[in-house]
């Protein structure tokens, strides 16, 4: 963050300033004066240097696949927008909004059965969504979404599929940031093999097989456990079909695999919590929200509404 860097630099500069001032104020009959200044200056300089050095870690940069998915927008509006406003969309959102959106998307993902249905439904779609084209357009992805490796892009397609099956008030930009976590969690069988215990436990619970569409801001409980636990392994394979071309690219992306387990802990954690309250819906939602708090970030009123875009209605497009 640019602010933090100025804070670190300012801290060091202030320490140097105090050292210089202590040098000027040196008077031999009162050593405690310049001694204090020297001590404070040294502490600040050393603290600032250590703080700066701790910031050196490998930075993950995700190449955003931006300016894509133009077919979804109406061409006229898009033309106008492209001509007039392309530069205005690069407003950087603060990271906590990203995390929140990501979490909201994770929790509102539907059952795989629906996705499968939608996949079937859109085979006729002229746009070759299901081919492993690495450069599928993605709406609103200009603000730095993830998906460097092909895996992410492959999962992007899956995200598109979901998206097309939903109502008109989805928000695609909410999908974008969650792409990496999506793909991390839906990675192939191998990383998720560690979850088999949880999955078996959870899947045996049953719950409602048909996820009610998450309306409003609080997603319902059943869809939240959904894809992480409810999906029996064969569903994964169905999905893996979509991913087949990209699954072979999995080995080079060792990094992503590493993220997968860490990223996937979240749904299992949540799944466990949802387990406890699996029978309750509605009124229990707020409490669950507070428990999870979207990773410690409370809802703020100005944020866009989270989950209405993923209001899956199974009969929306028959």
């Amino acid at each position, binding site marked *: 963050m640019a602010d933090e860097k100025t804070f670190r630099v300012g801290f060091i500069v202030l320490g140097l300033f105090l050292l210089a001032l202590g040098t000027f104020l040196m008077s031999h009959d009162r050593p405690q004066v310049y001694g204090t200044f020297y001590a404070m200056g040294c502490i600040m300089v050393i603290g600032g240097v250590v703080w700066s050095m701790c910031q050196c870690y490998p930075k993950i940069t995700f190449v955003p696949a931006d300016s894509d998915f133009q077919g979804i927008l109406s061409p006229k509006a898009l033309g106008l927008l492209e001509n007039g406003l392309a530069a205005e969309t690069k407003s950087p959102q603060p990271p906590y909004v990203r995390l929140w959106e990501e979490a909201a998307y994770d929790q509102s993902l539907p059952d795989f059965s629906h996705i499968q249905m939608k996949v079937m439904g859109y085979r006729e779609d002229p746009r070759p969504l299901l081919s492993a084209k690495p450069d599928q357009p993605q709406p609103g992805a200009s603000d730095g979404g993830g998906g460097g490796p092909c895996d992410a892009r492959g999962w992007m397609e899956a995200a598109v599929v979901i998206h097309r099956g939903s109502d008109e008030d989805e928000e695609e930009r909410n999908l974008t940031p969650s792409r990496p976590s999506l793909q991390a969690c839906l990675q192939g069988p191998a990383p998720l093999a560690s979850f088999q215990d949880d999955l078996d436990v959870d899947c045996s619970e049953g719950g409602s097989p048909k996820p009610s569409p998450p309306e409003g801001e609080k997603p319902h409980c059943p869809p939240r456990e959904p894809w992480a636990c409810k999906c029996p392994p064969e569903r994964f394979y169905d999905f893996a079909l979509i991913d087949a071309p990209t699954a072979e690219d999995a080995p080079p992306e060792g990094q992503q695999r590493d993220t997968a387990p860490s990223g996937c802990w979240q749904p299992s954690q949540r799944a466990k919590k949802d387990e406890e309250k699996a029978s309750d819906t509605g009124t229990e939602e707020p409490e669950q929200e507070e428990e999870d708090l979207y990773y410690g970030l409370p809802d703020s009123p*100005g944020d866009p509404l989270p989950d209405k875009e993923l209001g899956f209605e199974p009969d929306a497009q028959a």
Partner: protein
Amino acid sequence: MEELVGLREGSSGSPVSLRELWGPCPRIRRGIRGGLEWLKQTLFRVGEDWYFLMTLGVLMALISYTMNFAIERVVQAHKWLYREIGDSHLLRYLSWTVYPVALVSFSSGFSQSITPFSGGSGIPELKTILSGVVLEDYLDIKNFGAKVAGLTCTLAAGSTIFLGKVGPFVHLSVMMAAYLGRVHTKAIGESENKSKQNEMLVAAAAVGVATVFAAPFSGVLFSIEVMSSHFSVWDYWRGFFAATCGAFMFRLLAVFNSEQETITFLYKTSFRVEVPFDLPEIFFFVALGAICGVLSCAYLFCQRTFLGFVKTNRVLSKLLATSKPLYSALVALVLASITYPPGVGRFLASRLSMNEHLDSLFDNHSWALRTRNSSPPWPEELDPQNLWLEWYHPRFTIFGTLAFFLVMKFWMLILATTIPIPAGYFMPVFIFGAAIGRLIGEAIAFAFPEGIVAGGVTNPIMPGGYALAGAAAFSGAVTHTISTALLAFELTGQIVHALPVLMAVLAANAIAQSCQPSFYDGTIIVKKLPYLPWIRGRKISSHRVIVGHFMNCTITTLAKDTPLDEVARVVTSTDLATYFLVESTESQILVGTVGRVHLVQALQAEPPSWAPGHRQCLQDLLAGGCPLEPVTLQLSPETSLHQAHNLFELLNLQSLPVTSLGRAVGSVSWVELTKAISNLTNPPAPK
């Protein structure tokens, strides 16, 4: 950049960002973070503002003291050079003039190269910022170093250039407060709060003035008077607390440096305390105030005219545009040539520094009476015990010297204010007023050698008191403030002249405020800053003006049922920052405002419409998550100008919608208000 979250295997708790997982020594970092959290809990249990205000005060005092220290060393070096260079006139002239020319041109070039905002005083822009306007990048921390370096160089040039410290120092402290506000927000972890930030800025303005003069009372009052149109009493303690910390630290550093024994005033005087003045002298004090008022009107008028002339004249503006350091160097050369001590500077007391000017003018003896019979020689070197000898010339006497000083410094100061360097304009005006007061006081002492009340004990007239009154009156009239009276007392520690000085200040203000805008308002006018002026007087039939007369009727409204193509067309063809949202195209009932950025984002992220035959309209965009701000304040076309003006000033607003029976009919921003007010005071010629 997005952040992934993750959880370390085997650990429970809230997920942390991957960045933190992969950093070095995660356990130590966690330990440190836990320790910091605990520290935060204990420290900030009382309330977090105290620490940041104290930090602000202490930091600004440190910076002020360091600047004074550096300037003193540089000035000493220059004096040594001037002394050691020998008797050759050319060499002495060169050493006298090259020094300020080099410093001023370096100051100008350095600060202008980093940011163009660094020139000038900074108080007019701060006044605009505190009234709610956002001047981008004016409070950026990277301007801090530029301004400190520039200001140090300007002050090191000393009384040759005759500029002060207050304005840029206030700007520095407000910059530091904005920076500390960001640290504050990050440390506490809450989101940015505009009003809280504003409170810190107001306190910072007080700190700036207080640490320059080590005067907390007048610092707070002066900053309130100069920079706010409305001041909330909640912020009072903030300003005082920070200003006291700053002033205390400033004087403490002087003690640490063995310059003083204990905490004292900046300019020590030794006025008579038992009977400082006689009762009839009050009349003379008030007359002095009136004279200062008239002179301040002349000064303000000339200064504003000259500033406008420099901006519009072809040659000068081209010179300023292409090469600011060259212009600064030329002006410094002119000023230094005039103040060359063996030449004209002999009659200007140009060997005195700014502080020594004040010390000599507050002298408690009457020079006219001392030099009436004797004629002391001009010392070769500056005599610190008898600074007043600089003002004495055998032929012209002190009256001639003082009068010449006043005449020359009047236009020299105006010329110096046009140099694009960071400089404050309060101190030179203070000294100018002290010279006026001294001249009048000496004249009265000369006219009444035995004092005014004859018979019994005679109390001779003390021109030092008149100098104090003149300084306070003139500077108060130029800046349209009354707290300069208090500043005069805090600087010298003498409050015995409280009442006459206050009366003089009031008289001067009465004259100046009815004739001319203040120094800072004049700069706002010349620079065309977006500051809302106040409505002068009630006699201009301003009560009959209503909002309907001057509102902006051409507003762009977007109805909820507008199709998206139309919305996109409107958004691309207009350039507004917010659009009024109305219920429907027929009813035009105002519902709220939509920001342009959000609208563009929503339009670009627009999903396809799937319901056949249903054209997408703005309502769908809004339902899809484009944030809509509801309208909380509205004006009616029958609201009076005064009410609208009060609303804007009190709440620091920038614009308001005007609705009639719920229908959006117009909007009022400060542009329309300013035009309405200026049309009132200067009615346009009827066509």
